[in-house]
């Protein structure tokens, strides 16, 4: 049975891809020329973190991570909106 081997477990491969792409997006957060670029990179990393919480919940069979994912998705929605509103009113 191939599925018993941990190296071909799809959850592990997906989590490795998520960490790798988060590191790539962190490049844009650090070296972005404008503020909007940094916010784009951070928002993308936030979405990857939500998917990673769901992966952890399925892997460990603990449903508390799903509630954490819902709360983090709402925070990830509100944070850029408040920052954008502040930047529009000051400019």
């Amino acid at each position, binding site marked *: 049975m191939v599925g018993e081997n941990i190296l071909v477990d799809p959850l592990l491969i997906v989590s490795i891809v998520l960490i790798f*792409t988060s590191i790539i997006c962190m490049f844009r957060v650090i070296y972005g020329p404008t503020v909007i670029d940094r916010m784009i990179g951070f928002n993308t990393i936030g979405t990857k973190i939500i998917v990673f919480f769901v992966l952890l919940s399925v892997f460990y069979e603990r449903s508390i991570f799903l509630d954490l994912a819902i709360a983090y998705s709402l925070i990830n929605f509100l944070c850029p909106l408040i920052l954008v509103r502040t930047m529009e009113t000051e400019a």
Partner: protein
Amino acid sequence: MLELLLFIAGCTVMVFGAVGIIRFPDVYTRLHASTKCDTGGALSILLALTAYTGITLTSIKILTIAVLIFLLNPVVSHALARTAHKRGIKPDKITVVDMYARDYP
């Protein structure tokens, strides 16, 4: 089998979105790559996890998170693009047409 196909599709979209976030020339095209990465990649992986767990309470919660991402991420992307245009960030030189500047001068 279905979840493996969705896992592969989601990982491919995630990798190409990350490459687009690094390589694209200005804010608006990077936002385009970021939006594809959010909705396409994340929704594919969440639907694959739903098919992986079967029909339980967990899969219903995962579907709730998928609907939240599907509804809330385009709002954030739209607000970011509008603020970038209002702050005077110009598109790249190879841009052909800018309809928002024509409609709201």
